[in-house]
């Protein structure tokens, strides 16, 4: 439990740039572009130090740091997935085709272009180094982002989601090959690159506005709808353990699943005053807790072995308190941290 997650600062630029360059496939939401990362770090810092009472263009960048101060992972929350633009997805819908004459009724599945998710909060851009603790860092960053949302719910939308990479096989993206290629006649990687270089919204805007009939898609494309890539299955399970469920929406380009959760149904945690002690109270059963101080201006969370004593205080050791910069009696958000391990620890 030697990792801490904190809001990123401009000093993290080199480390984040390195991780962005290492990410394979490249992350649409984490461009390996110094200038753009620099601007984003500044925006993230500004957002945290400003009073904000509704979600907007903000992006919150977090990093996971080891005891020795090494930054080994990063992740982002976009307060609104669309920001100033639209976040397009395909929504799975059903049409009813019924004929009195033939006395039949059929449900016909379609995919409709949608920008509903523009107004939801997006958890994205998880990248790591190849450090031994990368898997733990991923796990922690998932929980830490939710802790930030629980700490400051007014900064986020009622719906939260993550978009996981879609199914690929032998270097091909069957959903793209069966759908997007018809419209764009480009390879997935090429369009993916174009999408990560700037706006993705133009892609949805130039596509035909009519829904796709699933019965007309080839089997490979149809089976890829809402299916995560093999090396993202663990991430799907990890998010499900955090209370996320599969959404009706899938990624416009690769058909990958979106998982969503309701901001107001996250495990609430408790706000408790901190108490710093050398030893745990005898009558308390110490547990593994994610502890987040309330302090504005930055964000900092880590997993601590702590206990709740009979006075309703959160008792932690001095070392943990120091790392969190928590002082006695300062209120902290305490969320039990599941033991469910994430052995694969795939990025989301």
């Amino acid at each position: 439990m030697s990792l801490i997650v904190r809001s990123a600062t401009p000093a993290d630029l080199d480390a984040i740039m390195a991780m962005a360059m290492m990410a394979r496939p490249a992350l649409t939401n984490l461009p390996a572009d110094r200038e753009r990362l620099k601007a984003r770090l500044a925006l993230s810092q500004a957002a945290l130090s400003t009073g904000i009472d509704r979600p907007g263009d903000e992006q919150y960048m977090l990093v996971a740091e080891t005891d020795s101060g090494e930054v080994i992972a990063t992740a982002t929350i976009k307060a609104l997935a669309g920001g100033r633009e639209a976040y397009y997805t395909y929504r799975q819908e059903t049409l009813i085709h019924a004929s009195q004459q033939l006395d039949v009724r059929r449900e016909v599945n379609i995919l409709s272009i949608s920008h509903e998710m523009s107004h939801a909060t997006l958890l994205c851009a998880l990248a790591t180094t190849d450090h031994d603790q990368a898997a733990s860092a991923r796990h922690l960053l998932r929980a830490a982002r939710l802790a930030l949302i629980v700490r400051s719910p007014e900064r986020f939308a009622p719906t939260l989601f993550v978009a996981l990479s879609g199914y690929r096989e032998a270097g091909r993206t069957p959903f793209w090959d069966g759908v997007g290629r018809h419209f764009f006649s480009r390879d997935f990687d090429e369009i993916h690159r174009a999408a990560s270089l700037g706006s993705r919204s133009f892609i949805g805007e130039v596509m035909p506005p009519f829904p796709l009939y699933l019965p007309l898609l080839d089997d490979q494309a149809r089976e890829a709808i809402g299916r995560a890539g093999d090396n993202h299955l663990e991430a799907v399970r990890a998010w499900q353990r955090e209370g996320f469920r599969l959404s009706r929406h899938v990624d416009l380009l690769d058909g990958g699943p979106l998982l969503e959760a309701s901001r107001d149904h996250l495990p609430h945690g408790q706000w408790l005053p901190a108490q710093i002690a050398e030893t745990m109270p005898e009558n308390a059963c110490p547990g593994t807790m994610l502890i987040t101080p309330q302090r504005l201006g930055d964000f900092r969370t880590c997993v601590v072995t702590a206990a709740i004593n009979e006075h309703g205080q959160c008792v932690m050791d001095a070392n943990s308190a120091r790392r969190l910069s928590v002082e006695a009696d300062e209120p902290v958000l305490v969320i039990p941290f599941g033991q469910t391990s994430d052995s694969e620890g795939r990025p989301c």
Partner: protein
Amino acid sequence: MLIRPIEEGDIDALQAIAVETGPGFTSLPDSRDFLIDKIAHARESFQRTQEAGEGINEAALYFFVLEDDRQPLDSADRLAGCCAIEARVGLDAPFYHYRIGQLAHSSSHLELHRTLDTLFLCSDHTGSAEVCSLYLRKRWRGEAQRPMRNGTLLSRARWLFMAGFRERFPGRVLAEMRGRFDDDGKSPFWEALGQKFLPIEFQRADHLTGMGEKGFIGEMMPRHPICTSFLPPSARACIGQVHTQTRPALAMLNRDGLRFEGYIDIFDGGPTVEAYIDDVRSIRDSLTARVSIETALSTEERPGWLAATTGAAADFRAGWVGRGPQEGVIALTPEEAKRLNVEEGETLRLLAT
């Protein structure tokens, strides 16, 4: 051989044709009640008197038979074939096509500019005339019968009827052509599209359509546009293509100026060809002449002139005559005059073919 309007007494022969054509010929199902209704509708249509501009919202069916006047009068074998004109399709039941349209698809950001071929379910031909139901019985087909040009007579007599009774028809005419089928008699277009949405066989879908019961199409077939690139190549290769056996009929219609304008059958993808009626070559090039009955005329070996009466629609007759007009006069043998039921001095409409 002569073309005349169908009559009530033709019902047995018509049903024999329906049996002979089999289920592939959807407009003549083997149903006596259906055929009786069809004849009644046709009789009513022929007997209607109609001025220009009248009846433009009424369906009418002009159903003709080809009669072999060499056979004994009471022979069941006098009926050699049939053909028809629907004056205005889609008035009683929806008349569906897929229209092939182009959707622009462009993005300056991607430096992409292309168009996508797209199928739209539409009823654009509502109100057009249709030539249909052409069938020539086996006995009157084949190499030995070729010099009689029975197929041409059946097909083109209709243009003379339309030329003579122009006020009964709208601006445009169409013909639906049977689509391409594979060696197993299956339609790849149907397999890729119709079958995915309809819980019935091609034959049943085609049959219901022939009976005019088309409601299920609007209810069950996709009503949002479909990009053709989503269809497999075998199905795309059917779009606007005809059945091998339909090629001669298509060629004949093409020569008359009917063209494929991007409308296809929703089941087999076969083309609809169409034209403005006034542009149809047989109609534009037809001319009228006064009858002179002469006894000492020779008959040409290959019938080259088609003649049709210009009196009442219900008395319409058409057939081959052995020669063309000279200075507004068409000379007929007494047999030809009898066949067309015309007398000296009456007017015929003529077409060189």
